């Protein structure tokens, strides 16, 4: 038996971003003995980088706003592929979750009446995002972190959990290693909540940090759980492009929400060429109307700069492909023309700081150079909408790692609210489950087998540099499974992924087990490659263009595909990809969505750019 530190809890929450912290707070409040296990120090998870705000129909700026409008915007933004029940719960509960943060000490920016101020964002009909300048994620994670610490919840920091333990029927715990010492650790748990975020580090140009290696998705898959919609990846339209060291770094959508305009190298406001039929009724089609909207939102339609992210990212990609991009392969984002230096510094302080310090650009005077960056995955673990239970008993998932809520494309601001709404629900359901579940029996043989797998890189004396494999993987996913996809390229990606897998098995590790990033990466590669395969295979099967998935060879949005989830399962060590019907929206909610469906060709940049959705 390997030397493995052991702990037992009712509920183990893996991940300490917004969803994990909120889940743990809820599980603890409901009397479950709860642990939070996270790869980084507490308070450093990806939520801290969220900038623009948290979407909730509080109605503080627009009394007309309510959950029904938010539900509609979310579903239409997701190209109607969303799980309707999740979108409904999210829209209904987000306001309470935001107000709850205020009860725990969060300080959002205020309206003149002293209420929480809300800002405009892409795809939201009304100014809806509660925010703190452009550092909303920091406010949120610190508030949750302090609340969790005040409750005395046990936190295992810098501890990577790598495998779920199972008894053939249900989850019995999880296992991994302490990053600091390299020692192995196993948790027996009645319920496990995965809140591990996404897999952005499989791509070259990404806003995601090293932590985003698809751990939760890979662990769930290995434990037998279903994934859905893995082809749905979000390229945020505005990442930094220059200098090379900051390529991919996020530029908040708040820049456009607060008055920023996209232009190509000739200074043209190209977004007017890319307004899809699905959004035409609510989008300004002249510069005059778009400009007027900033001052008079009642009598003008919103600027196409604030179309949903998938539309804007594709438009930018098309402009660059057509030779109308900047010197460094991006387009311009300009807020200096419309807003004063004081306004920009007050509303967007970290954008000002980030460009000034890292790119020598003063955004109060100069244009920013931006381009799409892999930001988020809408796909992930299939969950029950009310309880966030995965398809394996005892397993729950919340936040980016779970799927369904955002359909084919997530609206900006809907992630932070997702974390809170479904984090809380997952924590509640996991705690309730743990009360009725019998004590788990941890299988020592399974623990030993996983221990061997984790220790293997030290013993094998491999000849492959894990950093090099990772770098080549990022290039492959960027080039072949990027913003625009094609059958032959996806097949080439699968062939390369197989080769990466073989090479990763020979990853070399030097040095001791104490805080050894080379070893950690060698182990992460398996998850990165495995989840990349699920994305690529799902992308291959969905022969249409919708939201975050655009096929050059199938540019049409196909109503038939709009009724299907792509489902990924792992059986006998192999991925099995099928399609299943998405749950039908009940009539009373369907009426909120409008009659029209997304149709037409997506702008792939392969031909003269036409508006996606044009007939």
């Amino acid at each position: 038996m390997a030397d493995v530190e052991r702990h037992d809890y009712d509920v183990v929450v893996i991940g300490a971003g917004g969803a994990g912290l909120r889940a743990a707070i809820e599980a603890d409040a409901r009397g479950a003995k709860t642990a939070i296990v996270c790869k980084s120090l507490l308070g450093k998870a990806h939520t801290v980088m969220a900038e623009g705000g948290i979407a909730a129909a509080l109605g503080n700026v627009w009394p007309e706003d309510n959950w029904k409008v938010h539900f509609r915007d979310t579903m239409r933004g997701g190209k109607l592929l969303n799980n309707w029940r999740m979108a409904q719960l999210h829209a209904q509960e987000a306001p309470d979750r935001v107000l709850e943060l205020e009860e725990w000490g969060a300080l959002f920016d205020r309206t003149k009446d002293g209420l929480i101020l809300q800002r405009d964002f892409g795809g939201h009909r009304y100014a809806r995002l509660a925010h703190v300048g452009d550092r909303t994620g920091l406010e949120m994670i610190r508030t949750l972190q302090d609340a969790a610490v005040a409750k005395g919840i046990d936190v295992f920091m810098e501890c990577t959990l790598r495998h779920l333990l199972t008894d053939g029927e249900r989850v019995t715990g999880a296992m991994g290693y302490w990053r600091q010492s390299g020692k192995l650790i196993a948790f027996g748990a009645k319920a496990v909540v995965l809140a591990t975020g996404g897999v952005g580090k499989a791509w070259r140009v990404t806003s995601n940090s090293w932590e985003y290696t698809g751990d939760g998705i890979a662990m769930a898959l290995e434990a037998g759980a279903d994934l859905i919609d893995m082809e749905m990846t979000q390229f945020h339209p505005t990442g930094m492009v220059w200098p090379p060291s900051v390529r991919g770094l996020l530029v908040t959508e708040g820049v456009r929400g607060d008055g920023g305009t996209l232009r190509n190298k000739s200074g043209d406001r190209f977004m007017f060429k890319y307004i899809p039929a699905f959004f035409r009724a609510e989008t300004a089609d002249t510069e005059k109307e778009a400009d007027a909207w900033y001052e008079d939102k009642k009598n003008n339609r919103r600027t196409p700069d604030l179309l949903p992210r998938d539309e804007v990212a594709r438009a930018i990609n098309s402009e660059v492909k057509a030779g109308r991009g900047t010197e460094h392969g991006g387009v311009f984002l300009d807020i200096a023309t419309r807003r004063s230096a004081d306004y920009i510094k007050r509303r967007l302080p970290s954008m000002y700081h980030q460009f000034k310090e890292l790119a020598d650009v003063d955004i109060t005077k100069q244009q920013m150079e931006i381009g799409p960056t892999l930001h988020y995955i809408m796909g992930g673990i299939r969950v029950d909408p009310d309880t966030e239970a995965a398809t394996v008993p005892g397993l729950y998932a919340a936040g980016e790692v779970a799927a369904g809520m955002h359909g084919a494309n997530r609206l900006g601001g809907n992630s932070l609210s997702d974390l809170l709404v479904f984090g809380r629900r997952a924590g509640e359901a996991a705690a309730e489950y743990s009360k009725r579940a019998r004590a788990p029996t941890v299988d020592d043989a399974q623990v030993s087998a996983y221990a061997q797998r984790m220790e293997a890189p030290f013993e094998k004396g491999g000849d492959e540099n894990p950093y090099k494999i990772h770098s080549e993987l990022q290039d492959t996913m960027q080039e072949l499974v990027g913003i625009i996809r094609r059958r032959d390229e996806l097949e080439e990606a699968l062939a390369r992924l197989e080769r990466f897998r073989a090479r990763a098995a020979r990853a070399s590790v030097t040095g001791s087990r104490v805080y050894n990033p080379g070893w950690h990466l060698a182990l992460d590669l398996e998850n990165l490659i495995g989840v990349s395969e699920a994305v690529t295979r799902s992308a291959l099967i969905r022969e249409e263009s919708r939201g975050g998935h655009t096929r050059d060879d199938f540019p049409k949005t196909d109503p038939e595909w709009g009724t299907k989830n792509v489902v990924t399962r792992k059986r006998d060590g192999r991925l099995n990809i099928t399609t299943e019907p998405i749950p039908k929206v009940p009539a009373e909610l369907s009426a909120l969505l409008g009659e029209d469906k997304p149709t037409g060709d997506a702008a792939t940049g392969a031909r003269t750019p036409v508006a996606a959705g044009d007939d």
Partner: protein
Amino acid sequence: MPDTQVWVWRGDASGGDFMPYRVEADEGMVVLDVVHRIQAEKAPDLAVRWNCKAGKCGSCSAEVNGHPKLMCMTRMNEFAPDEHITISPVKTFPVIKDLVTDVSFNYEKAKTIPPFKPKPRDPDGKRRMYQEDVERVQEFHKCIECFLCQDVCHVIRDHEENKESFSGPRFFVRLAALEMHPLDANERIDLIRAKHGLGFCNITKCCTEVCPEDIHITDNAIIPLKERVVSAHYDPIAWALRRMRGKKDEFAPPEPKPPSA
């Protein structure tokens, strides 16, 4: 681009030394990029913490040429072409390995701070605060917990023995944020003096100088806290009123002074 050479401290709790590494330089590179390139090409086990790479998470704190810095926000072009560049772990906390230190001191101190406790709501069930009232606390909420202020604070940097009874600038900022929160109703003044060691601070402003978020730690957090402690404990009228009201003092802090250069 020419190569760049840096000296990185390699070692663990038992000791270590600076090791030279030469890697290719890119335009716009920051110190953290250089460290990553060293990891990828020369020293795969080089230990370093990082997350956001954009100055938002406070993970990659280190001492660059002896100055406490976020490696992700320190551009290589800040240094002269032939400058001898050293990268070492923060000094105030025990080394685990290479650039990674044991910062658990901070997480232990955080547990000792009485949490936010909200006042009752307005009669209509809402909570109202005005922008001008929240702004001074929002300054404190900018803290990214990089702990560079803790690193540079001489009360604990060179005096291990003070750590028991001194929480450091990070937590004075936290305490100030709670004390000045427009909705907070918890009691901390006694504790700030007795347990967190505010009296140890002699206002040298080193913390303010290194704060990457430009929080005026000394002027806006520490000095007003000191004044609150003094008022609560040594001003007999304030003391009596506080006892009668059973809550903390309500008075404005002094006008912020410009930070020292």
